[in-house]
């Protein structure tokens, strides 16, 4: 009986209320659908789409979806290597998303840990942690990533994701610390202290819920930032080209095929651009919903 009730609560808290909030906000709904579409593309896409083999078709076939009658033979055309562009987009989505979500998750995790510790501990530990944060903040991010990429030389999406978090967490850590310092002196935290509740209780039960919406939105921003960084690194050609990635397509279209200066090959560079912009946009719109889902005031209004 209790188990059923708990299950009911979980379903209500994590499915029904967020669902209602998303349905209520048109922008968030669009964002959610786009993001879900990309996730599905990454998860099942490569299983149902043929492997993008090179030299299989003629070069630069025009997108057939814009022809009359439209056809799905090469919906986005073929590229410089005579490979189907749509297959490359689908196969690339998996690595792009793994990199982005790994980096988003690790960045947020480090940001919370450092920010919370600094805010709570205060004193010397706070000074040291914020000093380290400031130092990493001053080193130019993208150039540092390029150097790290040549040191690590990996095409494993998870390792790339970890690499991208190296100094992405600094801004979040600083804001979390400020928020903790502000919350530390609120009445409910002082009351919890006076009651002699353990620190973990204060951190996870009193302070975290107040920061959840902020943290969730920053997770999305970290993900968006990781897409910016990883695609940029692939575009510059500093990561090994062994996996499929939209950044590699951008690089090839730009540097090998000169796709940006001839109308004939324009579709080759527009495909990865559309894929990247669409994903960034979907995540950004989705972040509006996330903000509301974790906002206790809006939650109570809904349920």
């Amino acid at each position, binding site marked *: 009986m209790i188990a059923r009730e708990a299950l009911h609560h979980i379903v209500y808290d994590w499915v029904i209320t967020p669902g209602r909030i998303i349905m209520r906000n048109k922008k968030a709904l669009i964002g959610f659908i786009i993001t879900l579409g990309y996730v599905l593309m990454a998860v099942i896409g490569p299983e149902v789409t043929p492997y993008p083999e090179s030299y299989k078709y003629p070069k630069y076939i025009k997108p057939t979806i814009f022809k009359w009658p439209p056809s799905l033979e090469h919906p986005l055309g073929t590229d410089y290597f005579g490979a189907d562009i749509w297959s490359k987009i689908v196969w690339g989505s998996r690595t792009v998303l793994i990199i982005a979500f790994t980096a988003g998750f690790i960045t947020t995790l480090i940001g919370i840990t450092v920010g919370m510790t600094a805010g709570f501990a205060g004193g010397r530990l706070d000074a040291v942690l914020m000093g380290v944060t400031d130092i990493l903040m001053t080193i*130019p991010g993208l150039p540092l990533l390029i150097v790290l990429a040549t040191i690590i030389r990996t095409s494993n999406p998870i390792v790339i994701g970890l690499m991208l978090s190296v100094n992405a967490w600094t801004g979040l850590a600083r804001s979390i610390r400020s928020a903790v310092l502000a919350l530390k002196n609120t009445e409910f935290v002082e009351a919890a202290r006076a009651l002699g509740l353990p620190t973990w209780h204060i951190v996870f039960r009193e302070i975290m819920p107040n920061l959840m919406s902020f943290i969730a939105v920053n997770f999305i921003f970290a993900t968006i930032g990781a897409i910016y960084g990883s695609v940029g690194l692939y575009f510059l050609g500093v990561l090994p080209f062994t996996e499929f990635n939209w950044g590699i397509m951008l690089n090839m279209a730009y540097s090998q095929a000169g796709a*940006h200066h001839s109308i004939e090959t324009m579709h080759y560079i527009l495909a990865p651009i559309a894929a990247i*912009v669409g994903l960034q946009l979907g995540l950004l719109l989705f972040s509006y919903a996330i903000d509301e889902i974790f906002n206790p005031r809006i939650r109570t209004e809904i349920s």
Partner: protein
Amino acid sequence: MKWIYKRIILALLTIYFAMTFTFIVIKSMPGNPIQALAQQFVRQYYMNYEEALALAMSVAPFVPKGSLLEQYFSYMMKFLRGDLGVSISVSTGTPVVDILADAIPWTVLVIATALIISFGLGTLIGMAMAYKHGSKLDSILLTVFSILRSVPEYIVAILLLSILGFQLGWFPVRGRYDYEALQLLREGHILPFIANVLWHATLPILAWVITHIGGWALGMRGSTISVLGEDYISYAKARGVPERRIITRYVGRNAILPLFTSFMLSLGFMFGGSIIIEYIFSYQGVGLILYQAIVSRDWFLMLGAFNIIIIAVVIGAFLADLLYGLLDPRVRRGGETL
């Protein structure tokens, strides 16, 4: 005044540690400048690797020697005296200081112009949006700016280059200026040269402005809306302070304060981001120099470029703190800084 000394010491420490960290990271890169140079010779002159290596050693006798610790101390000591070493890849033997001094003004020209335009326009539009918030125009702009903000600037740069540069041919597609313009400058025609330079800088500036204006507008919109709800605004209105004065002195000034710190930090971020923008437009600024230095393992040039950016960022943050104190009388110096 005690606050300022503390802040200066903190800034110097940050620079020192950031430089040290960068030194360690760069020294752990695989390969060295001689190998990179040798490989370049192999590609260029079809030599075999041993010959190329010998040639590389003879033309570039500047490779740092000694243990890592010795190299570190010697680099730091020389850096203090303004000696940043010599380049190995970009015309071998040129002092790094000269290369950077040639490149920095161009990068600053692009990013400072872009930052001023996007900040100025963005805050103005953001304020207007806040006054009209809830209106149709506001919601359209909100969507447009959200979209623009989520697009990486290198994507916009590629699109601008291909459409306005290659397809329509309205703007030059590479470089800082045309050779003919330089000839004109030598003959004493300054204005045509400046026009040519600005014409070349337009697309890179535009790429930054398009992707950054949204962030400033949305930030200013939020900040203005919260200021508009303050009691002192209602009070000023009740006292009959002229509307124009309220908008500029009361609302504008207070709303812009929170954006000020990010303005200074943006400069540093844009210095780093200019690596891709300058690569796309083949624009010989710090970013492109840094990219070439990394690819050819040109240690001194890399360190020099990194360290210049680090120092610029720290000074920017320092100035932001100073000015913030001057602009906002509420800031308590020496107190708890959030």
